C-alpha cells in the first residue's frame, strides 16, 4: 500500500498511508473509533476506491487489475456479509463458487471450511436462525473461501463469548503461518497475543508500524551527541543491535535512536564502549517500556498533540 489517501467530503479518513507486508504474518490494526481502520480494509479489499495512492496485492493493482488482485483476498467486514435466507451450506457453496474455486475441489474445500470454522453441526440450518457467534463463524469461513493469501478481519471478535474468543485466537495463530492476516480490533490484548506486527492509525495517519515485541526482545532509546551520518552505520553493525530506527531530526548534532535488541545486557556495554572509544557523549540511554498498551497510548497522545 503506497501513500493511500481517502476523504469523505471534508473529513480525511486516511492520509498518505503506506506499508508493505511481504511475508506470512498476522498484522494488528489498531486505532480509535473513526481512525480509518475500516476504510483502510475496505480499500485493500477493493470495496472502496482511494482518492490517491495505490494498493498492490500479490503483484496486481487493486484498481487496474481488480479481478486478479481480489483472487488473493478474503474479507470479513465488521458486519458479516451473510444472506440470512440461505443455509450455512448453501451460503458457503455460493461463496466458493463466487471465489471461482475449481469445480472438482469445491466439495472438499467446503468440508474443510465447515471443519475449520466448527460449523459442521449447523450446516443445514438457515443463517437467520443462528446465534451471533455462529454467524460470525460463518462470516469467518466465508473469508477463507478460495484459500486467499490475504485475509482481512474487521473486529472479528465482536459479540463473541470468551470461549469463542479463545477458539478464534487459536484459529488466527494457525492461519498466520500460511496467510497474511490483517486484523482490526479495539482489543489490545487480542492484538498483542495473536499478531506479529502492529499498525496504529490516528485520525487517518499511520503513526506506528512495528513488530510486536518478542519475549526476549527489548527496545532502548539512546541519545548521542554526534551527527547521524557519523555514527549510524557503526551502531547498526554492533553485534547486539537487531534493528534501529531514528527517532527525530531536531538538532543535527544530536542523534536519537530506538534500538531493538535480543540481548539487553550486552547492548548498553557495547554502546558505552563505542562512546568512549569515539569520544561521543551519551546524553540519554533508557530501556523502553514498550507494551502494546503504552505504545498505543503514546501514539494517540503524540497524534493528539500534533
Amino acid at each position: 500500500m503506497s501513500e493511500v489517501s481517502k476523504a469523505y467530503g471534508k473529513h480525511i479518513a486516511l492520509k498518505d498511508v503506506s506499508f508493505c507486508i511481504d511475508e506470512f504474518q498476522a498484522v494488528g490494526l489498531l486505532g480509535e473509533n473513526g481512525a480509518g481502520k475500516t476504510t483502510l480494509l475496505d480499500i485493500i479489499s477493493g470495496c472502496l476506491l482511494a482518492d490517491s495512492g495505490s494498493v498492490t496485492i500479490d503483484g496486481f493493482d487493486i484498481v487496474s487489475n481488480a479481478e486478479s488482485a481480489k483472487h488473493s483476498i478474503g474479507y470479513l467486514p465488521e458486519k458479516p456479509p451473510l444472506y440470512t435466507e440461505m443455509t450455512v451450506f448453501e451460503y458457503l457453496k455460493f461463496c466458493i463458487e463466487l471465489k471461482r474455486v475449481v469445480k472438482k475441489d469445491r466439495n472438499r474445500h467446503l468440508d474443510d471450511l465447515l471443519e475449520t470454522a466448527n460449523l459442521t453441526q449447523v450446516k443445514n440450518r438457515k443463517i437467520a436462525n443462528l446465534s451471533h457467534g455462529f454467524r460470525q463463524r460463518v462470516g469467518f469461513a466465508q473469508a477463507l473461501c478460495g484459500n486467499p493469501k490475504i485475509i482481512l478481519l474487521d473486529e472479528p471478535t465482536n459479540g463473541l463469548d470468551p470461549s469463542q474468543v479463545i477458539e478464534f485466537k487459536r484459529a488466527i495463530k494457525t492461519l498466520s503461518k500460511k496467510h497474511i492476516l490483517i486484523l482490526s480490533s479495539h482489543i489490545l490484548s487480542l492484538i498483542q497475543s495473536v499478531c506479529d506486527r502492529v499498525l496504529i492509525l490516528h485520525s487517518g495517519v499511520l503513526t506506528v508500524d512495528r513488530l510486536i515485541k518478542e519475549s526476549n526482545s527489548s527496545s532502548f532509546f539512546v541519545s548521542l551527541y554526534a551527527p547521524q551520518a557519523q555514527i549510524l552505520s557503526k551502531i547498526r553493525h554492533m553485534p547486539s543491535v537487531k534493528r534501529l530506527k531514528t527517532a527525530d531530526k531536531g538538532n543535527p548534532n544530536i542523534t536519537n535512536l530506538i534500538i531493538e535488541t535480543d540481548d539487553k545486557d550486552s547492548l548498553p556495554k557495547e554502546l558505552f564502549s563505542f562512546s568512549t572509544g569515539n569520544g561521543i557523549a551519551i546524553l540519554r540511554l533508557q530501556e523502553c517500556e514498550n507494551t502494546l498498551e503504552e505504545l498505543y497510548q503514546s501514539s494517540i497522545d503524540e497524534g493528539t498533540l500534533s
Partner: protein
Amino acid sequence: MKVLYKRELYSFFVTGTGYVFLFVYMALSGIFFYFGNILTRFSDLSGYYSMATYIWILLIPILTMRLTTEDRKNGTYKLLLSSAISIHKIVLAKYLAALSVIAVGLLLSVIFPIIVAIYGALYIPEMLLAYTGMLLYGAAYLAFDMFISSFAKGNTSAFMLALGANLLLRVIGLASKSASSGFIKEILSLLDTEKRFTPFLYGQLSFACIIYFLLFILINILLTAQINSTDGGYRA
C-alpha cells in the same frame, strides 16, 4: 456471474418477493382479461396487452426495491465487491434474475391468449409481437427502476422512489404528445416509452423501437453500475 444470477433468482423465490410479484401480476392481468374479453366475449387482446404496461409500472418496483438496498442493509455488498466479479457483471446478474421473474410472469399469462384461442380466434404472430413488446417494455422499466432504486437506502423508499419515477416517466410521455414546441417535444419524446411500445400492440415489428428499448436498458444498467461502484452508492 452465473452463480450470482442463480443466487438472486433463488432469493426472489425464497423470500417470497417473486411469488408476490407473480401472484399480483396474474391477478391484475386476470381482472383486465375478465372484464375486457370474457365478460364482453371479445377476442381482440390489444386492450389486455396495453393494460400490461400499467401493471409493469406498478409492479416492477416490487422486484427492484431489494436488488441493491438489501445488499447495503445486510452488508453483503462488501462480499460482492471484494470478490473477483466486476460491478457490471454484478448489476447484470441481478438484472437478469429480475428479468427472469418477469419472463415467468409473461409465460404464465399466456394462459389468457390460450383461452381466447380455445373459444375464439387468435392471430398468433400478433400475439407473439405483443408479448415481445411487453417483455421489452418490462425489461426497460426494470433497468430504469433498478437505477432509480439505487439512490434509496431502504426497501420501502426504493419502492416509492421507483414507483414515483415510473409515473413521472409516464407523465413525460403524455406531455411529449401534447407539447407544441418542436424542440421540447423532441426532448420529451426521447423518454416516451409508450410511443415505442404501441407498434407492437398493432402487430408491427419495429426495429427502431427494439433498438430504442435495448439502448434504454443498456444506459440504465451502466448508470446502475456506476452508482453502485466502489466509489458510488454501495459506499457504506
